[in-house]
């Protein structure tokens, strides 16, 4: 197997393992553990076997094209630094998997745990091995998302949910910042490839976008590594199961931030801005983390703050811009991971065995679990920086760096003091952890009786603690070469000379260590009694809870403020929306005229045709009246609307467009009747009797609406005037006039346009008509009238009352005798209108008429029947299936269109000829007339369907009323 394949497998294996783990049955705890352990062990072996290839000095690379146009390839790259980290991640991952077997309870959903755990490991390896910065961001966000799942693993607990959400929110924000930062780096360098970026240090540092770029990249790194001021999510993430904390919050995820800083340190670091940003964040985290850790009651809380502090130390080291600092940083990343993972696991054992993690409740466990206690003590000593342990070595290097002067500033001057104080704090909290848990009085009221854990649960800790010891005593022999290739791969030619010896002689750093150890121990002695009874959290800072502030800000921004914005800048009221629509279109249409010297042609009074103008005055009056009455007097509005429609019809006649006039007239009639039928079912509205009574605000609103309407209307008028008075352009209508007869086969150009030139439009429009009818049908099937419309109309009641008063009449007689004579005539008109419709249909191709007009005329015949005889009579006698008419109409029209395919022509190509029939004479026989038949059928079907639906409502009303009363009775 070559090294590229191994690299691919290394990253694919955990993800494949995750998929596999998810498929296990919920109770197969052992099998699941074995599988996960095998996967992680496989990853360890793969990592380890890549060492020879990496040790040659050239990184192992694998490049798979992914999104070449965006410069994003799936490229993996393993150099010494990445190798060291991947060893760390896989080894600790393996140990934690074994540990988890004993930690997790049989009731927990084990498949979910291991699936996310392994997926997380894969994502983390992805960050480490990415050879492309965008790919790194991809894996970076993936770790945020998966860690959300792992922190919230016990989602029944509120603190787990909150902790998970907080960590995802903060690291997610950081991830977006990182993405922006990486994009800027890509912008500067011209590539996202890590090698290309690492080669362009000078270019990046001198670019004007350098400062924004590092701010954004550091936002990502600081949030991920829980650096001040984004540190507060980490203690809250302790709600996660302890194996998760051991893996994510010691060794891996929180290390991603410092990993990235170290990775990009050669290109981004070494400047003043970098120094200040990272130096301040690092120093603050180092000091505050250590200080806060002293005052935690929860063991995991203590460890979490300690992690913040140690990561601060690493950040501070990376801020200095000296190669030796970078070496120390890399070394401390390793050391911290080993001792902190083992401490977390020890904390998990204590929690698991005794049932609590509260240090004020615990005590005297040394006698009950001596092995665990010893291991924890060694690991704590490493955390405190006691000599002969690995923590001591990197801390010594840190001290040595802190006393050097790098950039002359307050921060740099303060560094040694900060270092010593923070180390002293570290000693204090380490002692506190050991002393409070393992020594002193053994409390009586522990939830469980503690005892030593199973061997395999302790084994991971033993191995890690052994590593702490071995590295601490003989560093050069054990990790020297590994560390060296990592350092060289980051620093390259700048690699300084450093020594990993335990004893450097009596140096200033050693003195500082001694001061820190003694000072820390003294501090613990002083604070011991206070700590045994204090509240959670450090004095003074206790009230200032990052978590609370975060929650408040989040709730405010993401809920209250957002709702406020939605409520004030948006609306759910239709009136306002329509008003906005009118206003926006007004402005949109006006803008092009602004600043243009557009002039309207002058209006000459002499040109006005007086009767025509009067006609229009009437039409305008009708339209305005309709708008005015629309709200409270619907019937009046409808009649006035009809008036405006008639004026439009006459206008068409006047301007020699008989086709339009015929169609318009028929449509006006049918729609007016249909709306009339619908009016019956609209709820009543009562006018606020006198306008004077309406409140000022209403008046203002109405005034404003009137103004908007008037301005919009005026604007529309001006636009129409401008378009209609300008010289006619070279339009396509000339073509239609020329070709209608010779190629379309009809003298009626309008009809030829409708069924031939633009037959496809007609096809679409009849579909619309059909759909509207179906929609009306569907809506009315479930229609339940408003309560105040259920009663019979007032007129009917008056008639019925008269019947009752008079002894010679039967109730309801007057209503049934209504329009007796006209109704007979109307019934006789039925066949006449059908013939008329046929006439309109046939002559359509040459003279005004056509399928549409014929269809509407036909439906007028049905309307008359309803008017004359009432719904019950018509429904008894008439078997018309309007839905089928609609369907057939569309099918006919469609098939006529498709018919031309047979002859090798496109859809709807028409063929026309005149046929001489006996008696009737010469009639046109264009295929278009068949198409028109489809139109006719559909129009009849659609209008009749709507008619039936409206009319049928009056019958259903009674049944509906019956049904609703019966259901009420049933419920009762």
């Amino acid at each position, binding site marked *: 197997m070559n090294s590229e394949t191994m690299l691919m497998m290394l990253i694919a294996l955990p993800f494949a393992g995750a998929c596999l783990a998810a498929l296990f049955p919920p109770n197969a705890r052992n099998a699941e553990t074995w599988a996960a352990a095998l996967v992680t062990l496989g990853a360890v072996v793969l990592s380890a076997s890549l060492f020879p290839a990496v040790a040659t000095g050239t990184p192992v690379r694998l490049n798979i094209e*992914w999104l070449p*146009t*965006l*410069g994003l390839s799936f490229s993996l790259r393993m150099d010494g630094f990445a190798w060291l980290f991947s060893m760390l991640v896989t080894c600790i991952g393996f140990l934690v998997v074994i540990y988890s077997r004993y930690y997790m309870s049989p009731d927990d959903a084990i498949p979910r745990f291991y699936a996310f755990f392994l997926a997380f490991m894969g994502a983390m390896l992805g960050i480490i091995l990415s050879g492309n910065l965008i790919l790194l961001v*991809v894996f970076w*966000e*993936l770790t945020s*998302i998966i860690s959300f799942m792992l922190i919230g693993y016990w989602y*029944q607990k509120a603190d787990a*949910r909150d902790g998970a*959400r907080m960590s995802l929110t903060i690291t997610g*924000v950081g991830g*977006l910042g990182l*993405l*922006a930062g990486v994009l*800027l780096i*890509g912008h500067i*360098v*011209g590539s996202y490839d890590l090698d290309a970026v690492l080669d362009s240090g000078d270019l990046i540092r001198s670019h004007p976008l350098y400062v924004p770029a590092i701010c954004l990249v550091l936002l990502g790194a600081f949030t991920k590594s829980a650096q001040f001021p984004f540190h507060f999510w980490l203690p809250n993430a302790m709600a996660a199961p302890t194996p998760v904390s051991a893996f994510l919050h010691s060794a891996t995820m929180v290390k991603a931030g410092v990993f990235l800083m170290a990775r990009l340190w050669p290109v981004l670091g070494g400047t003043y801005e970098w120094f200040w940003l990272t130096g301040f964040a690092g120093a603050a985290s180092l000091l505050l983390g250590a200080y806060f850790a002293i005052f935690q009651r929860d063991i995991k809380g203590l460890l979490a703050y300690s992690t913040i502090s140690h990561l601060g130390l690493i950040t501070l080291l990376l801020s200095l811009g000296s190669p030796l600092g970078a070496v120390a940083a890399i070394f401390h990343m390793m050391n911290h991971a080993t001792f902190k993972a083992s401490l977390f696991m020890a904390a998990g054992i204590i929690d698991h065995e005794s049932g609590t993690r509260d240090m004020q409740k615990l005590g005297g466990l040394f006698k009950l679990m001596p092995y665990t206690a010893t291991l924890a003590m060694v690991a704590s000593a490493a955390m405190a920086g006691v000599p002969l342990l690995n923590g001591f070595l990197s801390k010594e290097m840190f001290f040595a760096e802190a006393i050097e002067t790098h950039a002359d500033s307050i921060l740099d001057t303060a560094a040694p003091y900060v270092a010593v104080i923070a180390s002293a704090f570290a000693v204090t909290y380490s002692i506190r952890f050991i002393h409070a848990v393992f020594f002193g009085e053994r409390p009586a009221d522990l939830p469980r009786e503690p005892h030593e854990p199973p061997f395999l649960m302790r084994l991971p800790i033993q191995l890690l603690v052994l590593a702490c010891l071995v590295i601490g005593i003989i560093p050069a022999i054990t990790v020297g070469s590994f560390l060296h290739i990592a350092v060289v791969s980051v620093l390259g030619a700048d690699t300084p000379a450093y020594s990993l010896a335990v004893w450097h002689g009596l140096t200033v750093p050693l003195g500082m260590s001694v001061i820190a150890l003694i000072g820390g121990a003294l501090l613990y002695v002083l604070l011991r009694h206070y700590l045994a009874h204090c509240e959670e959290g450090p004095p003074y800072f206790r009230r200032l809870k990052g978590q609370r502030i975060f929650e408040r800000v989040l709730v405010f921004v*993401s809920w209250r*403020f*957002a709702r406020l914005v*939605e409520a004030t*800048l*948006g*609306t759910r009221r239709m009136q306002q929306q329509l008003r906005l*629509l009118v206003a926006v279109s007004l402005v949109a*249409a006006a*803008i*092009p*005229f602004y600043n243009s010297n557009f002039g309207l042609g002058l209006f000459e009074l002499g040109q006005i045709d007086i009767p025509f103008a009067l006609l229009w005055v009437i039409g305008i009056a009708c339209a305005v009246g309709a708008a005015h009455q629309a709200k409270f007097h619907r019937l009046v509005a409808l009649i006035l609307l009809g008036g405006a429609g008639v004026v439009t019809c006459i206008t068409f006649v006047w301007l020699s467009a008989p086709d339009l006039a015929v169609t318009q007239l028929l449509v006006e009639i049918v729609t007016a009747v249909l709306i009339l039928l619908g009016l019956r079912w609209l709820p009543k509205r009562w006018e606020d009797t006198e306008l004077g009574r309406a409140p000022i605000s209403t008046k203002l609103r109405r005034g404003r609406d009137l103004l908007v309407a008037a301005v919009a209307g005026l604007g529309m008028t001006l636009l129409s005037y401008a*378009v209609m008075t*300008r010289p006619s*352009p*070279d339009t396509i209508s000339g073509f239609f006039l020329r070709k209608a007869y010779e190629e379309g086969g009809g003298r009626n150009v309008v009809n030829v346009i409708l069924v031939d*030139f*633009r*037959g*496809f439009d007609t096809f679409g429009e009849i*579909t*619309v008509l059909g*759909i*509207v009818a*179906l*929609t009306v*049908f*569907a809506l009315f*099937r*479930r229609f339940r009238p408003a309560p105040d419309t259920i009663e019979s109309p007032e007129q009917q009641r008056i008639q019925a009352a008269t019947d009752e008063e008079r002894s010679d009449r039967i109730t309801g007689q007057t209503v049934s005798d209504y329009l007796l004579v006209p109704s007979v005539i109307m019934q006789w008109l039925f066949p006449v209108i059908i013939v008329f419709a046929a006439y309109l249909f046939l002559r359509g191709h040459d003279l005004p008429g056509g399928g549409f007009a014929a269809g509407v005329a036909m439906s007028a015949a049905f309307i008359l029947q309803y008017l004359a005889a009432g719904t019950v009579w018509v429904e008894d006698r008439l078997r018309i299936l309007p*839905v089928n008419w*609609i369907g057939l109409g*569309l099918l006919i029209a469609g098939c006529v*269109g*498709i018919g*031309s395919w047979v002859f090798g*022509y*496109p*859809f709807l190509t028409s063929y026309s000829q005149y046929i001489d029939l006996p008696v009737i004479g010469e009639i046109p026989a264009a295929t278009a007339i068949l198409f028109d038949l489809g139109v006719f059928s559909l129009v009849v079907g659609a209008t009749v369907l709507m008619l039936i639906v409206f009319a049928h409502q009056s019958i*259903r009303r009674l*049944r509906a009323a019956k049904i609703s009363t019966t259901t009420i009775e049933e419920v009762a």
Partner: protein
Amino acid sequence: MEWRSHLLIVPILLPLLTGALLLLFDERRHVLKATLSFVATVILLVVGLVLMRFADSGEPDAARTGVYLLGNWSAPFGIVLVLDRLSALMLVLTGTLALASLTFSLARWDRIGPHYHTLFQFLLMGLNGAFLTGDLFNLFVFFEVLLAASYGLVLHGTGIQRVRAGLHYIAINLAASLLFLVGVSLIYGVTGTLNMADLAVRIPAVTPGDQPLLLAGAAVLGVAFLVKAGIYPLGFWLPTAYTAAAAPVAGIFAILSKVGIYILFRLSLLLFGVDAGASAGFGEFWLFGAGIATVAFASAGVLASQGMARLAGFYVLVSSGTLLSAIGLSTVEVTSGALYYMVSSTMALSAFFLLVELLDRAQDPAADVLAVTMEAYGDDPDMEDVVEDAGLLIPGTIAILGLCFVACAILLAGLPPLSGFIGKFAMLDAIIGSNKPTLDISMFGWLFTAALIGSGLAAMVAMVRAGIRTFWAPIEGTIPRIKLVEIMPVAGLLLLCAAMTIGGGPVLRYMDATARAMHAPHVYVEEVLSASPVPPPATTEGSQP
């Protein structure tokens, strides 16, 4: 004329004829109806894919355009259908969403009201027609077709909430249709043509005196499209209507708002693109500004939404706003990324709309019962009662739902590793990325970047909140009963998004080719205007066939 060339009109005719045919069968034969509808939709998707292969079959950099002359009249006199990479893309997207929504509705929704399948097919006809047509008035017709069908569908299932939101929807869209007509008439009045390609030729020649009239027409037309796209401040109706609509209807409506976007993309580049002379770049500034405002407002709306359906409704606006500002930026690279984003976000939204119903079922089992009692109150003796054959209790239902939800959340928030991220990254890369290191990033670029990142953040916070509330907070979670046909479309759409991520290379290549063709409209114009009708057979005398 070859038979294959008629394939271009099939996406319009097939749903039309299917819808018409379904009208001839009684509601009681719903199995037959559902089968016909389903088969037609599958064929539609296949035809879409075939057409896409055709559109993409030419030279990588050249646009391949298929032109279909309806009634055998050449452009600009007759109506033309035009197929290029962009319209083929939209056809396939429509087919995909249609198949998913239709499959979902087979579980229950298609039997809740009359003529569901017919209306659904007519909606598809309108959508496909709008994507294929090359004629401005014909576009209006297809807009009407799809809107009329959507009116029917938004009311499908009735209920006070739905009818109220539906009537608002109808009122606003009717008003917008009116504006559409006004705009078209103004443009016709000035240029004397309706064919889009012909318009592109005539617009540069419009005299300065007439130019304001033309632009006013274009602006009014634009407002009509912007209403459909849901731009701020004209899009307040959208979240309410989409929330109220039945789940499968909302699932297909996810593409409805993209019709406006599609037209704006096409027309702004075709009519006011590089070759438009004095009118070039018209409206870009306004589109950009309004797009950013939409993203900002809709992000607040996403955060302020309590229900998940409403959240999704607001996210439709986020997606629209992002795309509109991308149109405003008007560069080839941004357009390419925006197209990718559009496909990804539309599929994700559709999946989410479908998923929300399933999740709501877990929240409140009473809601399901309520929908059924609604049936009982109806008075349709001919309507078969919806049998509540409780779906299978699939083991791990919650796990599957949870996984789907997480995938939706990742997609909507634009987080890696799914296609939502790739789309955003593609647009961001076009603005500040590695492609043009020498170019300065404009203020617009910064604003756009901030809007993209900010809206993703808002979506993340809101989705995390909704997810925790749905999956983690309930003490006694009820496991919803879910049928396989309901979860399959959701999973299918999400898997497609995943496939778009892994196969991002070829997909982005297609988008790049599409974007390049859109920004060089002269090829489209030449192809359309040079298409010649089939000559009449020489032997026939007299009138031509």
